[in-house]
């Protein structure tokens, strides 16, 4: 029950087709951890800036001149129209090049692509967000949107697992959310240091600390593969319906438009049928190796 192709915002790209990037200027950098930075971007062409909008969970293809392209989810508030933010962990040639970019320089950008978290569909329900590491980036727009429309949803709970405290990103956001009465935030770390007094262990362990009303709960999951699997299965065993467990998946996306074939996942293209899938739509292949 994720958004269909027709309901999505128009794709913004260069003048010569969906495979050519438009250009956006880096207007700000926010260091998030030792290897992760948030990049604030603004389209160089104001007309494109006005045309661009996105749904939580969608991604852009970011192009570093001559280096290559990478699919990166959008981590900013969808109602913010002046700028958009990508939160990037530096792990490959494109993301290393991104790290070298100075404020004022430009990146190529085309998007938004892909399906989104089904917020409309889940109105009135409890929303349980489970994030692992950098997986919180595509969930942050959801949290912004939930908090902007707080009266339309039941309880909102964020379970966030990180390797260590130093790996936690969006720390200020997490603190702000924790201070609010209308969202419950639980953070767990795998490797605690001496200052850590919170929960320790994998994120599914946090399930013991929250009350899940399975009939009225929708679960949004984004993290490493093993976490996604364990979390989905944990909620299934709590009797949450497979139609109400949503998982954002990661594959190597080269085109974003279902033509290059790299992101195939069974009969799905992660770039256009996903990245957000309901568990029900992929349950026959979910967790199978090498599909």
């Amino acid at each position, binding site marked *: 029950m994720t958004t269909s192709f027709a309901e999505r915002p128009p794709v913004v790209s260069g003048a010569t087709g969906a*495979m050519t990037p438009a250009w956006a200027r880096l207007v700000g950098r926010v260091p998030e951890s030792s290897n992760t930075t948030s990049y604030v971007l603004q389209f*160089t062409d104001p007309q494109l800036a006005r045309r661009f909008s996105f749904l939580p969970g969608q991604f852009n293809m970011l192009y570093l001149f001559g280096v290559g392209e990478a699919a990166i989810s959008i981590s900013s508030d969808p109602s913010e129209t002046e700028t958009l933010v990508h939160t990037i962990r530096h792990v490959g040639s494109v993301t290393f090049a991104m790290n070298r970019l100075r404020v004022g320089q430009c990146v190529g950008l085309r998007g938004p692509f892909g399906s989104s978290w089904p917020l409309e569909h889940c109105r009135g329900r409890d929303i349980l967000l489970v994030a692992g590491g950098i997986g919180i980036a595509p969930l942050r727009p959801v949290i912004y949107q939930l908090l902007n429309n707080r009266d339309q949803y039941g309880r909102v709970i964020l379970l966030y697992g990180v390797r260590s405290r130093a790996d936690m990103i969006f720390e200020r956001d997490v603190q702000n959310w924790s201070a609010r009465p209308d969202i419950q935030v639980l953070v767990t770390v795998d490797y605690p240091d001496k200052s850590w007094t919170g929960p320790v262990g994998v994120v599914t362990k946090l399930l013991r600390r929250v009350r899940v009303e399975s009939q009225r709960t929708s679960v949004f999951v984004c993290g490493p*593969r093993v976490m996604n699997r364990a979390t989905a299965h*944990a909620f299934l*065993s709590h009797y949450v319906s497979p139609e109400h467990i949503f998982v954002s998946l990661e594959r190597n996306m080269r085109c974003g438009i279902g033509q290059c074939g790299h992101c*195939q996942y069974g009969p799905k293209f992660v770039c*256009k049928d996903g990245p957000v899938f309901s568990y029900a739509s992929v349950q026959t292949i979910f967790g199978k190796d090498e599909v």
Partner: protein
Amino acid sequence: MHGAAMVTIRKNELNTLINSLRQDGYQVIGPTIRDGVIAYEPLDSIQQLPTGWTDHQDAGRYRLKRRSDGALFGYVVGPHSWKKYLFPPRQKIFGITRNGGDEFVYDPQPPDPPRYAFLGVRACELAAIDVQDRVFARQVPDPYYAAARRNALFIAVNCPEPGGTCFCASMDTGPRCKGGFDLALTELRTSFAIEIGSERGRKLVESLERQVADDNTRHLVDLMMQNAAGHMGRTLDTGDLPAILMNRLEHPHWNTVANKCMACANCTLVCPTCFCSNVEDKTDLTGNHAQRWRTWGSCFTLDFSYHTGGYVRSSIAGRYRQWLTHKLAGWHEQFESSGCVGCGRCITWCPVGIDITAEAATIASEAPQDQSINRCRVALED
């Protein structure tokens, strides 16, 4: 019964047809012998057709042989397909120059593709082009493919003698051309029977010395094609195949095939429907001019599934399974058609003779004995 208009022409009139196409500005592409195979190359006249040749095909085997007659189209499909013209193996997507600081200027758009007249397109190949249309010309049209496809003219040829690896009858794509052509030829002893499939085709035929086909000729063509449908080199039962394959992702036969498969990617390169590609970005030595190229990719290469988390399909079993289940199962959900048209190329050109019809049949007919392979077990909570 095929009610379309049908005429007959003498075989030499095909030259008149080629000439008038060339005068109309078409680049005529058709079968010719190159490097010991029948390839699709630019043609000036029927002299370049493989007249009097046929091909013997089997799993991992392809040989050209002399025929006892002078048939112009007495063979089936070779390793090439029309895909290389509509979806070129290497294609520049854009060039871009960085001027000093932050001004980026795209190169002018490349010229439009030539107007192609494809001569000798087989029924399975018309079906394959329809399959690729669903990838490249529907939701987000590819500019080059859409332009080449829109202008292309199709002179099809029916196959009265299917090859050793053909199974178009099983895939319901042939041996008779059902649509998607401008003209469809059936080669008779001294003439061609021509079905007219479009207004463009009708105009073309008007310039030829022709006769309206009589009932005997129509009947003969029907009989030839019925006979051909019963003489396929291979068969494939497609009944519930998509569901069966997707339920047998852990069948041990995937590993049996993988023990033979060299992951050479030949099958994906000769396949007329395989559409996967790589996107390559690079710069010149100054670093100020960059290009993006699209090149044919293959799910059989290890790199194909690489992403920051590693390789999705590190085993050959996983890659073969991906290819076969995509062709015969996943394609239906993605594009509302099979990804296989039954042309048999992947069987013929597999260096070790892996046969898609045999492997699919084995997986479909034998319930797996051993459920343990490739099974991942998930530790939920400690």
